[in-house]
């Protein structure tokens, strides 16, 4: 499957995605503006609580082409962070209180400078998260060494697994993905991840395989733990329940399946003020492959850079000014405030 961008699909244009979410139908036109919802909750304008997590998207290339991917990642995406931009990242977080560097993609492991970058972040004594699709760990000998590399550098792995059964996982992520993901998880367990004598953290990211909200995080964690242990002898630490945001390929799915109005209505009706107060954009900064700064990875994919009053590129990184910025919002933000809320770390309310 090609990415939307490679297929020159109309939804590869961020401005069109936002136009659809705001005015794509009578229903969508009548959806309350997210900013008004925040105002009713006393959270407008939305401000940071202080940046704790420096999330770096090191490139949109991926070995998978998942149907829901908000990045529109895939093998045909060529956007890759250079070593020079990685050095700007290191300069930005050095000598700051930012404790965590969170590496995402695409498949971040496919960046040619990935291992060097992890080693340099480790040397700064920062906690490192790698968001892995798991299957990349199985594709060739170079990548099969990565579980041990992760373990040696104390990397926290957040692994994508939308469901504990093959049918649902493959329906979203592609044929054969579930079986390879199981092998990837077993490789991580084998080097000490999520083992009782080890502090190596392996967390799973579960997201709905369709146009519905995620189930209760604790309930699903218990299900995943029971089934993965019984069927595959796999252990993990925590499960993060993540809502699909109505952008990019998931928006394409919603439109093609006739679900976009109902899904947006569902998100709006499930607006949770407690979740809104804890949205991840309040304590994260997202860095694009080219060094531009965003409030979150979703805004990055919609090319909505941080507010113009703040520095917009790593070259001008200024933590104090970024902590004073106003967070940029639009209708897709309802995805993070529905129900128990959603973030890169799962439920937030």
């Amino acid at each position, binding site marked *: 499957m090609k990415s939307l961008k490679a297929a020159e699909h109309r939804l590869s244009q961020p401005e069109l995605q936002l136009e659809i979410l705001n005015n794509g139908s009578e229903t969508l036109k009548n959806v309350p503006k997210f900013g008004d919802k925040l105002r009713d909750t006393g959270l407008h304008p939305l401000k940071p609580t202080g940046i704790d997590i420096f999330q770096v998207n090191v490139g949109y290339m991926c070995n998978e082409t998942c149907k829901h991917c908000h990045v529109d990642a895939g093998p045909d995406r060529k956007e890759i962070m250079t070593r020079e931009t990685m050095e700007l990242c290191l300069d930005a977080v050095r000598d700051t209180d930012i404790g965590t560097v969170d590496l995402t993609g695409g498949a971040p492991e496919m960046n040619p400078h990935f291992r060097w970058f992890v080693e340099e972040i480790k040397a700064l004594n920062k906690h490192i998260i790698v968001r892995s699709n798991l299957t990349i760990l199985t594709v060739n000998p170079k990548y099969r060494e990565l579980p041990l590399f992760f373990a040696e550098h104390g990397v926290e792995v957040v692994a994508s697994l939308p469901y504990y059964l093959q049918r649902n996982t493959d329906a979203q992520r592609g044929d054969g993905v579930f079986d390879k993901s199981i092998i990837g998880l077993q490789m991580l367990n084998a080097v000490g991840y999520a083992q009782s004598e080890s502090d190596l953290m392996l967390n799973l990211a579960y997201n709905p395989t369709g146009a*519905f909200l*995620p*189930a*209760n995080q604790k*309930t*699903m964690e218990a*299900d995943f733990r029971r089934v993965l242990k019984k069927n595959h002898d796999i252990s993990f630490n925590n499960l993060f329940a993540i809502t699909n945001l109505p952008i990019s390929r998931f928006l394409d799915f919603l439109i093609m399946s006739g679900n976009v109005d109902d899904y947006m209505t569902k998100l709006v009706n499930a607006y949770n003020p407690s979740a809104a107060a804890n949205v991840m954009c309040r304590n994260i900064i997202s860095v694009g492959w080219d060094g531009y700064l965003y409030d979150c990875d979703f805004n990055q994919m919609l090319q909505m850079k941080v507010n113009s009053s703040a520095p917009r590129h790593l070259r001008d990184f200024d933590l104090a000014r970024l902590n004073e910025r106003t967070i940029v919002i639009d209708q897709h933000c309802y995805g993070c405030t529905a129900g128990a809320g959603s973030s890169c770390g799962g439920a937030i309310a």
Partner: protein
Amino acid sequence: MSDTYYNPEDLAKFGSIGEFGPELSKKFFDYYGAVFAEGALSEREKALIALAVSHAVQCPYCIDAYTTDCLEKGSNEMQMMEAVHVSAAIRGGASLVHSVQMMNKVKKISM
């Protein structure tokens, strides 16, 4: 009036039944909410029961609502289909068990 007896958009208007009788409506929805809250049975178990009953009473609104609800409670297609088979088994069994009455009658009036 719609051209059909069932309109999918009416599902979202369920709450408006109080328009012609707010007191009873409120009592019903309070009860409804309490029934589906986590208790001795989990919310997921209750949603699966509701899905099965929806098929037994053949309510399209209920099937629509509880299909989504089951997925949002983390159930999968196999579990949901088994719940519907439970419904079908009870409905089928309810017919078949009456065949005992038929057989009794046959035996009574036959030589």
